[in-house]
């Protein structure tokens, strides 16, 4: 029983973590809560749906198309809605982000209609493996593994490559970085591209795990993942992953230990969030951000 819950929690948490990374990367650099992130996630899921289910392309190709498509959308969003607002009050960019989020959701309603569509899962991903009382499906195992690999790769990019160095530098001081001759806009675009690609991957896995796509599918996971990012310390990539896993555990374990209170499930998560923020205001693994003086 407990092992089953544990595995469920890990699978859910890893997905939250994957989405959370996109929030955390953009926030770390621009101090912008990119509300449109959940909708890029939705677009990624739709792209893979159309490629593989509608047009019967092989899954590998479908995944590639989804990643490229979502990345392009992410770049476009940055170019049109965020770049003109660099240097504007942060709240303006935030409202623009809310606007983009409304736009993408409703554009999806207009283009794809509001009907949820079924995603047909490849059967080998779903064939259960039974170990005593525990049932595992390959997909459930794959999600945490892929998440781990992606995070490692991302950490490598951020800490071992030149663009990564530039990203970290921008997050500390955007003006000085610009003076050093770094093309700030390009690096920010790169950040959006990476974040969107991750969102698309998360979207694909989400669509496989909870097999349907619909225009508002990004709203709740996006919201939860954002909470997860704050849990872990927004701005920190390992923090986002840790936050995601913690959130997954809180959601699953609160139901497991207090089945009578399952209606209060989300409240548990929020109470924990507030407690963490009060004890450690920058989240579990967040760095202290400089105070504006």
């Amino acid at each position, binding site marked *: 029983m407990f092992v089953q819950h544990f595995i469920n929690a890990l699978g859910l948490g890893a997905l939250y973590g994957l989405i959370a990374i996109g929030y955390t990367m953009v926030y770390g650099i621009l101090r912008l809560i990119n509300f449109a992130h959940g909708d890029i996630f939705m677009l990624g899921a739709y792209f893979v749906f159309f490629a593989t289910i509608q047009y019967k392309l092989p899954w590998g190709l479908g995944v590639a198309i989804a990643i490229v498509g979502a990345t392009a959308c992410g770049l476009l969003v940055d170019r049109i*809605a965020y770049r003109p607002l660099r240097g504007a009050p942060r709240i303006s960019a935030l409202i623009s982000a809310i606007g983009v989020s409304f736009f993408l959701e409703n554009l999806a309603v207009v283009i794809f209609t509001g009907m949820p569509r079924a995603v047909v899962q490849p059967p080998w991903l779903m064939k259960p493996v039974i170990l005593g009382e525990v049932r595992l499906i390959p997909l459930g195992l794959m999600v945490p593994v892929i998440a781990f690999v992606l995070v490692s790769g991302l950490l490598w990019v951020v800490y071992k490559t030149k663009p990564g160095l530039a990203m970290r530098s921008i997050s500390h001081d955007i003006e000085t970085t610009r003076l050093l001759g770094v093309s700030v806009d390009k690096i920010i675009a790169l950040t959006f591209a990476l974040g969107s690609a991750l969102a698309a991957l998360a979207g694909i896995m989400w669509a496989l795990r909870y097999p349907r796509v619909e225009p508002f599918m990004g709203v709740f996971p996006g919201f939860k993942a954002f909470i997860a990012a704050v849990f872990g310390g927004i701005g920190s990539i390992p923090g986002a992953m840790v936050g995601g896993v913690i959130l997954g555990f809180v959601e699953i374990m609160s139901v497991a230990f207090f089945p009578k209170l399952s*209606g209060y499930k989300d409240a548990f998560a929020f109470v924990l969030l507030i407690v963490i923020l009060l004890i450690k205001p920058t989240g579990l693994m967040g760095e202290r951000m400089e105070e504006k003086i």
Partner: protein
Amino acid sequence: MKTAVRNAFLNLLILGALLGFLWWAPANLDNYKLRIINLIAINAILGLSLNLIYGMTGMFSLGHAGFMAVGAYVSSLLILTVEQKNTMWILEPIAPWLLHLQTPFVVSLVLAGLAAALVGWVIAWPVLRLGGDYLGIATLGFAEIIRILIVNLTPYTNGSLGLKGIPAHTDLWMTYGCFVVVLAFMVRLMKSNFGNVLRAVRDDEIAARTMGVDTFKVRVLAFTIGSFGAGMGGALMGNLITTIDPKMFTITQTYSVLMIVVVGGLGSITGTVIGSVLITVMLEWLRFVESPIRMGAFVVPGVPGMRMVLFSVLLIAVIIFRREGIMGTREFSWDWFFPKPAKTTQTKEARE
């Protein structure tokens, strides 16, 4: 001195025009238009209260929907009749003490505000130690917790079934009465010394503290007053629609108030009023794209969802072209319409 008399006269004139409009409108406009006009006033009240918290005092709060929910529920529970309460709680019986609790609408409105203020005050103590976006997230967390409590505490709130058939008392006089009171309060507040203290806390907390201002207390007070406004606005909103349920008070509700405040101009009372007119009217008016459009012999079929697509494009465009909002932090002033005598401005500048 002369300008003060002039301004007082002009203000009275505007008030008179508003009164005239309120007297004229119910008989001459249809209910749909009246509903939108009512909504404008309610949105303005909500916007002004958020503007006090965020725009004036610099506390990024995403908890407005939670305070609105408290207000809407308190007020509605107080004006529902015993008979209605008996029939509506079909899942679990209503808490006995609540059954016979009843007050007139105006009293319920004040109590709604007070209840929301109390909740705001209780929340303020822990969360206002946080700053920036973290404050936003913590307040959002509290708003969600309030919503989840409403969903689950069926004996008091009727859970997700919500309350319906709330006796309607909101007409133009009520909503605009409240609006004028809130507006006047805000204008007086921001002109007073306390208003300067608020701005000081927002612009430079450390400096304010050095000047001997207990910044934490000031923030708690502003947050509590703002919550009062949100509670009252929520109560009016619930009463206008005459049915409420927890789903009405999600983060989307907070966003729409935030949008009004930011589009109007953060920190500007005038801006919030303009923003609420603009956003409320725009949302309704854009509906035409979703119904079939006849142009002579051609019929362009309406596209569902198109309204919000256009709305979001307009929203983004406004923010990009006027990044500080329509008014920025400026306020409306009668001086706009009169050429300023050069001498007075000089002395004013000299004094500063």
